[in-house]
């Protein structure tokens, strides 16, 4: 297939959003885990914060990352005319 400038722009934007979300993923996973001991001094709704992040906080952010990526890419496909058309 012929790769046009538009294709390249689409791919670069995809890489951009992927890198951004991967960054968020990394931060919400490893920062709270690394500093779990220190974060536990803060207590929210009965939960020590370090524990809360591992048991719930980071998990909810994961869900949001995936939700945002799906919506964003599906819009991006349309914007750059690379979507699959009305399949479903």
């Amino acid at each position, binding site marked *: *297939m012929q*790769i046009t400038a538009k*294709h390249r722009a*689409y*791919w670069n934007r*995809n890489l951009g959003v*992927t890198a951004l*979300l*991967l960054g968020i*993923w990394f931060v919400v*996973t*490893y920062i709270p*885990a*690394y500093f*779990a*001991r220190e974060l*536990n001094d803060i207590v*929210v*709704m*009965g*939960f*020590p914060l*370090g*524990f*809360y992040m*591992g*048991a*719930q906080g*980071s*998990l*909810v952010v*994961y*869900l949001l*990352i*995936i*939700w945002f*990526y*799906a919506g964003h*890419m*599906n819009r991006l*496909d349309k914007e750059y*005319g*690379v*979507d*699959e*058309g*009305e*399949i*479903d």
Partner: protein
Amino acid sequence: MDVSQTQFSAQLKRYYSFYTVGFIVFVVILGILEQLLVPNRIIGYLFLFATILLYAGIGFMTKTADVAEYYVAGRRVPALFNGMAVGADWMSAASFIGLAGTLYASGYDGLAFIMGWTGGYCLVALFLAPYLRKFGQFTIPDFLGERYGGNLPRLVGLMAAILCSFVYVIAQIYGVGLITSRFTGLEFNIGVFVGLAGILVCSFLGGMKAVTWTQVAQYIILIIAYIIPVVWLSVKYTGNPVPQVAYGYALQKVGEREKILNDKSTPEGAKEESVRAIFRDRAHFAEERLKGLDSGGATFLTQEKGKLEATLAELRTATPPTDPHVIDLAERAVKDFPKDEARARAAWAVEKTGNLAKASPIRAHAEPFAGKDDNAREVSRRNFLALVFCLMVGTAALPHILMRYYTTPSVRDARQSVFWSMLFILLLYLTAPALAVLVKFEVYSHLVGSSFSHLPAWVSNWAQVDKALMAITDINKDGIVQLAEITIGTDLIVLATPEIAGLPYVITGLVAAGGLAAALSTADGLLLTIANGLSHDLYYKMIDPSAPTSRRLIVSKTLLLGVAVLAAWVTSLRPGDILFLVGAAFSMAASGFFPALVLGIFWKRANKFGAVIGMLGGLGVCMAYMYLTYPFFGVNAPKWWGIEPIAAGIFGIPVGIIGVILGSLVSPAPGSRSDDLVDFVRYPNSEGEMEPAAF
């Protein structure tokens, strides 16, 4: 196509709504039967056989002879339903039964599994699912074969896929055997084969299509079974029906109790201390014996045995006559005395560490990385982070999960489907930590301090069933339960929750059915991955590309049968512990697959040589490390930076990535065919020779 797909989706929603209502009615009817005094064992049987029959029925109704349906469910599974199927495929016996128990036992440190097994889906969403769907073939080695060209990458990928799926499937079949044997009274080995029959009728007839629709049904059962008792427990202790919110309160209470029980100046703390002192004495005794063995050898062993025999003789002839129970114990001590030096050393070492563990103070539930000094805590943190990383990358590399994203109608659906998968998985993963804390609250606040003559019913029931799950002995003979006198097996937490919550037996049966659904659904997906890999990649793509459809399906089904029986046989030998097997599968998948798959999509320069080097190198390093450090293999080499063998992927993954990059750079760039394939998977609307419709 669009109209029929919408209709299809609406139809599915209707079917599965009816099904869910039907299942709830079934549970209610069994509940009524229980009130009519039908014995518990019959209710357990009804649950297990009714659900297995149900799965078999779905398998029978969806039987197929169409290749695309057999391998990828006809690629028309809507995002929502694929999400449920991934949920069931994903959540194994270890998640359903073991996870809450692991969290109970290890507190914060157990959260590595919670984070690892959810965060990995970010990697699936960002790096793999949409691209694999666009690629649109049948198996994961398919992608490696087409992207890198030639049979070698496909063959290496196939070997890696079979290796990690097989290790993982053994853990599942083990879970099936455990549940069927515990709830029906069948022998473990027979339980394994009964469960296996349930797995086979389903996948055998309809391949991926049947497995998909059974997995959706299994997801519904497993999530109902998991949530109901926990909600009940939460209402009972906190008055709040949302356990995920309410357990903050319980966690605080647990924290207060931990402080009291660890404080020797409080009355309860002093009693705990008296029990711990006894355990310390026992540990000391074992240590003395070990020392004696070091200096005295066989002579010491004979001496020790002589002492025991002398005590026994004394007891027998004593006046007034000794309690027969005490004589029994003394007789057993003589009978069980280790036969030779090696056995004595092993037994006493176990005795020493076991007693020392029981003698140590309680670890705070929310405290991360506990350790005796800063160095131990640092090693513990390092292991936590490494394990999280391995589990995440492994999630994004396990073939049976990735394969599920081949089955959606479009790339768009594949992306949405990862969202649904994550949501359905979170329902359970957000609940497990809550369950662990709620049960701990019950044990610390109610069981501890109660009298041995009035133990709660669930405690005495489970203590009778299995000593490994629940053991409780009045060590310091004060008639009151101390925490140090209770031993709880990890599997107990989920299994006993309905009874702790005061729910009728029918809910216990429901939990067993849920655990069985979790184990069967994962086993289905794994067995299919192995059989499809062998029949599609090995037989069709490499041995006989001109084989007609019917023969390909026959080969696939025969292999499925063979692999299943082999896996059941290996399981009946009872190798190793489940959590290690599962962890090993993740580390191996992460090291073997992830680098070659992701770089294959994101780096056009990656080529065949690099892929083969990366896969073999990553997998090799990972397995070598496990072999060297996991006690089962008996080598016990020193650990690198203190990393446990379960997180061996932390070494395998970088080696895999570097292997792909260096291997590619030292050999010629791949041809235009590979470039075209990469472009094809990157743009959802691109057309080309890889179009699945052209199959």
